[in-house]
């Protein structure tokens, strides 16, 4: 019983992190039909921005809980600068080209951003542990958990709820849904497609940076952290169905719980759980759990 509780808590914590780092990828794919490999480096940029701001903030000796707000500011700044720049500067020239070419373009952006982060922040690691330390530990089922993990859970829940509200309850969100379903008809109805695209790309970038910024206190921020994230995020998004926000949540939950179970019951499998879940889901449902079937081009 106790072990079940531990697995559930571990799984939920990991799932919320997975959701946070992958939902932006799904959003951008849903609207622009482009798999943004640069998502991984946007995660890294967010992590660096958040970590360096927290380090500076803590060094200044200001009110400690303010460091959490600083993380948020770092993520917003990183995403809002990088997102529109990438979309307007590069990605928009590839609309209408083969998906494979678009993939290569975002891959190029990824390579460029990887080195840009090295040039801006250097190659030595950043340790932004202050927010992590600040929150201390929580005792659940006889085991101490870092309270920061539950903060990530809270952030993920807020992001999920916020996105749901944005898509279902705001005018612009409904426009986005219309574009997801049929870009051509939306344009005919007077939707400004470029504006939807650049806004979505910026939002997706902010989400990636947010994932990075709130991950930063848990890890040492070093070059190369973006790669693993893009592979993980892709796995989550594919399990749920590319382009589906609910799918990203369900995919993250499924993978998070299975991985937590593997860690506690079959540690050898830990490394493969994500890919096993992905392979299993794809074998049964090639388009993911929430994927939509599309018409074939003849």
């Amino acid at each position, binding site marked *: 019983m106790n072990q079940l509780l531990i697995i559930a808590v571990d799984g939920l914590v990991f799932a919320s992190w997975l959701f946070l780092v992958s939902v932006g990828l799904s959003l951008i794919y849903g609207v622009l039909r482009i*798999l943004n490999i640069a998502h991984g480096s946007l995660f890294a940029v967010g992590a660096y921005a958040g970590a360096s701001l927290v380090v500076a903030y803590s060094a200044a000796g200001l009110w400690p809980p303010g460091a959490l707000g600083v993380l948020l500011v770092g993520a917003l700044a990183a995403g809002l600068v990088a997102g529109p720049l990438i979309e307007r500067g590069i990605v928009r020239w590839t609309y209408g080209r083969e*998906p494979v070419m678009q*993939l*290569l373009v975002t891959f*190029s952006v990824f*390579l460029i951003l990887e*080195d840009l982060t090295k040039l801006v922040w250097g190659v030595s690691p950043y340790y932004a542990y202050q927010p992590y330390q600040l929150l201390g530990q929580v005792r659940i089922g006889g085991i101490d958990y870092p309270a920061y993990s539950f903060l990530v859970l809270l952030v993920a829940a807020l992001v999920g709820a916020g996105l749901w509200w944005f898509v279902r309850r705001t005018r612009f969100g409904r426009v986005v849904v219309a574009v997801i379903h049929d870009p051509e008809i939306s344009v005919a109805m007077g939707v400004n497609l470029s504006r939807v695209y650049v806004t979505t790309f910026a939002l997706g970038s902010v989400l990636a940076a947010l994932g990075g910024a709130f991950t930063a206190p848990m890890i040492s921020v070093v070059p190369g952290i973006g790669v693993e994230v893009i*592979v993980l995020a892709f796995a989550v998004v594919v399990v749920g169905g590319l382009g589906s926000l609910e799918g990203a949540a369900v995919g993250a939950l499924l993978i998070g719980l299975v991985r937590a179970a593997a860690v506690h019951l079959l540690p050898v499998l830990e490394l493969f759980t994500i890919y096993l879940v992905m392979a299993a889901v794809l074998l049964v449902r*090639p388009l993911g759990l929430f994927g939509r079937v599309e018409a074939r081009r*003849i």
Partner: protein
Amino acid sequence: MNARGGGLGVLLVVALVMAGLVLPRWLVFLLALALAKGVAVLSVVVLMRAGLVSFGQGLFFASAAYAAGFAMRWWGVREALLLVPWSVAVAVGLGALAGLLVARYRDIFFAMLTLALSMVLYGVLIKAYGVTGGSDGIRIPTPTLLGLQLSGDDARLLVYYLAVAATAAAAWAVGRYAAAPAGYLAHAVRDNEVRVAYLGAPVSRIVYAAFLLSSGLAGLGGALTALNVGHVDPGLAYWTTSGELVFIAVLGGTGTVLGPLAGAVVYELIRSYAFKYAPYAWQMLVGAAMLLIILFLPGGLWSPVERVWRRQQA
């Protein structure tokens, strides 16, 4: 590939053999590395002709390199003519398995699934320290050829000639494949898969065959690299290795066999210098170059030459 392509190929092989005798040793070593990489780039090109981009050729590249390392370490095999076929066989075997899963997918799914598989191998290579030596990798001793034990420069030269022979064989094989029905059908799958299916051609088998050929080529490249460098490490399976191959394929264009090979040689030469002077800006340069080529020269750097060539023919 037409008669002229064949003639040009023979000329190039002769030139490469001569190069081994006259060029300085370090350049010969670099050339051997570039040829090994060129063979692996051909593996990406074979898939690209079928409209598939693989970000995970490192899976076969590394598994073949490690296969050679294990054969030397466990069974004491030193014979290059045994090691290379063995490594390629391991890569093709792995490709036959992985192909069952990934050959059903296209576009981004194919790209990301291959990426995920190669990252799994990377994780295994890093974690299974007792077997693979972890991030230290395995040392590969100098191979023998037909029992002939060479050392120093002679051994280097031997591996170089092995690379030349293997590259020529691979180029010939890919040329034959591209001109065979399976190759043409793969190209047709890229243009419109549904039509190919309606014409009665077995699409899944065509893609599977291309995947097998590609895994074998990547394996050959990996085995040659292992013998060349004398060391294998998990970096061979890392996404940067696979990404580099995709980049060279884009650079050289996918329309010819010589384009990607020439691209690999040029790339390796530039990299050996750029890495020295701008280690932290190298990926950025690669990314920027790839962007420019995709946006302005979609057929690869070779394509303007090809266009002039074709105009002269007409």
